[in-house]
Structure formats: C-alpha cells, structure tokens
C-alpha cells in the first residue's frame, strides 16, 4: 500500500498527475506539464512537495561519533545551524543512501534521507548504533516544501527575514504566519532555493500561503518530473541511479564528500582504494535520447551503462550520466545504444548546467 504526504489531496484536487515514487503517491506534474514547470524553476520560482523525504533525529553524547562512523563526510567541524551532505555507506563502501545532516544543537542532529530508503536506512543505522545516542525516525511527523528558483528569496523574504542565510545554512524555530518552521538554504535543482520543514499538519497551510504570496512572481506547483530533469542538468546524484547498493561514492564522483581522516569510519579501508568505475557526463551528438539502462560503448565494445538521461529542457540537448571503467575516464568519444541504434556521445564536464 503506497503512502501519501499531507499534500496528497491538494495535488489530486489541482490536476496533479499522480505516480508512485519511493513508496509514495506523488505528483509527476500538474496541468502545464514537466517542461513548463522546469522553466518556471529556472526562471522564476517553483514549489515542490518533498514531504516524502525521511527525517531522523540523533541526540546524545555519541551522536556525532555515530554519524562519523556511518556517513562518508566529516561532521566534526559542522557548526550549529549548518548543513552538510554525505553518503551513508557500508563496510565495503557501497551506498545505503545519500543524505543531509543538520546540526541542530551541541549534541543534536537532524538527518534527511530519501523516501524509498527510510526503512532500509533505519534498520542499517539501528544495527550499528553505539554509545550514548538516541535515534528516532520522525518522518511521519514532518512535512517538507522546497521553494526553488531565482525568485525564491524574493518570495520567502515577504514572510520572514532571511537576509543572512548563506548556502547550506539553516534557521530553526522560525515563525511563518503562526507556524513553526525550519528554513534551510538547500535544494535539489541547481537553482537558488530553500527547503522548509514543518509539522505534517501545517504543510498544506504553508503550501497555499507560499502560492498566494508568490502569485505575482509567477510561483507554480512543480512535480517530480521536473525535479528529475532539473537535478540531472545540475548533475546531482539520484539514489537508485547514480548511487545504489552496488555503487560507492568514489565511483559516483562524490570524493569531495568522502573524508577518510576520521577517528572511526566503517568504510575507511574500502574507500581508500581507487574506484574501478567512474561516473561521466555525456552529450549526444546524434539525434535521440539516451535513458537509464542504455548500454555505453567504446571502440565498438560494451563498457558501461547510462544511469540517467534526458533531453535537457534548459540546454535543449540530449544529456546523460553513465558509469564506465575507471581506465576510460579520460576518453572523450563514446557511443550509446538507444533501442538498437548506436548514437555518438561526447564526454562533457559535469554539471551540464550551472546557474
């Protein structure tokens, strides 16, 4: 049985095209379609229901040590009211999930994980907890709205002062129209933006408030369809595509989020080794669209596979991310098998799009 977010009825009543994603019924797009919503986020501001994301709470004297042990990044110098990205890994370095860590207080952290992995993550974390730490899964109590796009700051500052919020910082216990929220300057679109965490019960009120407040800015509700094309242009990994149970953060090109200089880290040995495969960006030179699972060829030999691909609405080019053997990382000319046709593809630098 699929789960729903506090905004499910709103989506249904506003022509949301509902699909299953990560165990949740979510809007893929609304009446105007994915392309329109994509451009709205790149040029104005869009709202996303991301209440399906999971939230965990860690507290206690050893909360930090537990995060340090299981998550690839180093959180020892993470200040209160700051956020850092990391990958939850196994002993062999493979990714259980990717996530954001928020330092709420001295010995208190909020960890935000992918919807599809909530149960898997919780089981994995509980299996490894040590010392004085209290772990809670608070996913069901939380609603989350992402406000993304160049006008997101303009929208949000009409409701609360947000002048001094650099990227990857947050403010807890902010009052918006009588509701208690946490505002985080983060996002998954490659555009400026914020993610607003609130009580499940207050989510719909705030959603409608944001839509009303940003009406003259052109704010629109946006679905998961453009969330995917936006993050793909920005080359942000999506769990299940660029990261999965068989892929390490090094293979996925996320070495800047892997810190081995830590006292105790579960994947210390595995992630000290050089990766055997690498994530690359490809741009198609022939007409066509490469999609997930398409085979990648080099010199007529099958060498890899596409993890995500689409026709980029912003660049109007066919783009893909793929995994190839590490020894081919420097090569530039590949081919992709798109339904039986080999299409030329050239390696390009990631991200495809930068604001």
């Amino acid at each position: 049985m699929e789960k729903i977010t506090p905004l499910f009825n709103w989506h249904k009543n506003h022509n949301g095209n509902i699909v299953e994603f990560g165990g949740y019924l979510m809007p893929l797009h609304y009446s105007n379609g994915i392309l329109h919503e994509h451009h709205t986020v790149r040029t104005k501001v869009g709202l996303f229901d991301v209440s399906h994301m999971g939230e965990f709470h860690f507290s206690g004297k050893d909360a930090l040590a537990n995060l340090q042990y299981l998550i690839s990044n180093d959180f020892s110098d993470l200040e209160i009211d700051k956020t850092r990205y990391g990958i939850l890994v196994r002993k062999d370095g493979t990714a259980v999930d990717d996530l954001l860590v928020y330092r709420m207080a001295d010995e208190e952290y909020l960890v935000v994980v992918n919807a599809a992995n909530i149960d898997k993550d919780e089981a994995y974390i509980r299996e490894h907890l040590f010392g004085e730490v209290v772990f809670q899964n608070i996913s069901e109590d939380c609603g989350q709205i992402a406000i993304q796009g160049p006008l997101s700051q303009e929208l949000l500052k009409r409701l609360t002062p947000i002048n001094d919020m650099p990227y990857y910082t947050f403010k807890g216990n902010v009052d918006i129209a009588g509701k208690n929220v946490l505002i985080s300057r983060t996002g998954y679109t490659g555009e400026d933006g914020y993610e607003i965490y609130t009580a499940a019960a207050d989510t719909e009120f705030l959603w409608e408030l944001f839509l009303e407040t940003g009406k003259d800015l052109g704010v629109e509700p946006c679905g998961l369809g453009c969330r995917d094309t936006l993050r793909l242009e920005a080359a942000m990994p999506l769990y299940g595509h660029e990261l999965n149970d068989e892929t390490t953060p090094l293979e996925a090109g996320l070495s800047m989020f892997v810190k081995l200089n830590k006292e105790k880290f579960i994947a210390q040995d595995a992630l000290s080794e050089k990766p055997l495969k690498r994530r690359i960006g490809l741009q198609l030179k022939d007409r066509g669209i490469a999609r997930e699972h398409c085979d990648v060829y080099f010199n007529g030999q099958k060498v890899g596979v596409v993890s995500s691909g689409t026709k980029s609405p912003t660049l109007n080019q066919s783009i893909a991310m793929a995994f190839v053997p590490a020894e081919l990382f420097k090569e530039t000319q590949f081919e992709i098998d798109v339904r039986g046709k080999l299409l030329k593809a050239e390696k390009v630098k990631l991200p495809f799009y930068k604001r």
Partner: protein
Amino acid sequence: MEKYYAESHEWVMALDENTVVVGISDYAQHALGDIVFLSNAEVGDTVTFGERFGDVESVKAVSEILSPVDGKVVEVNKDLEDTPELLNAKPLETWIIKVEGKIDPSKLMTEEDYLALDKDH
C-alpha cells in the same frame, strides 16, 4: 476528409485515392505529456498495420507509434525533427508520415467511435 483511429491511438486520413497521412490522437499526446523527440520512419520504408514505424518520446517516456495502414512511406514531416512539440499543440493537424496505401475501415474506428471509447480501461 474523415479520420479513422486505431486502438493504439494513431489516426489516419486519406488525401486522395492512394495517399494517406498518419498522426497521433489528442488523447495520445495528452497521455504522453511534453513531446521532445520523434524517431520517425524514412521515405521508402514499408509500414504494416499494427507494427511500429517510429517512437515518440516525452520527457519521461518512450512510446511506439504503430502504423494504422499498410503501405510505403512517401514523405515524412520534416518539421517534427526540430519541433516535435507540434504533436502536443496540434495533434490532429500534424501528420507524421505520408503513405502510399489505402485505409481499411474494418480494422479502425470512426472518430465518433474513438472519442466515445473508454480509454482508461
């Protein structure tokens, strides 16, 4: 001229005794969403009723286009190479291929019957 429809949501319309044009229905374009690419047949290709002659791709999905007629492709709509979104904007005025062939009404639906069809089941 009158359009006939296949169950797979393509339409076919006669231009003259031996020439027909083929497109996709308004329902099909709506179900697909934003169309961003068309992989079309080539002039000279033989098309067969009920068999794939091309693919239409939206942002999220690829969908086969099946031929609602037997015949030989005599022209393809070149405009769709760069502006496949015409299939969203004007599905009933935008033909995809022009075929030398004849409509077989016994295998197809009239527009009235097609529009009355319960397409969600």
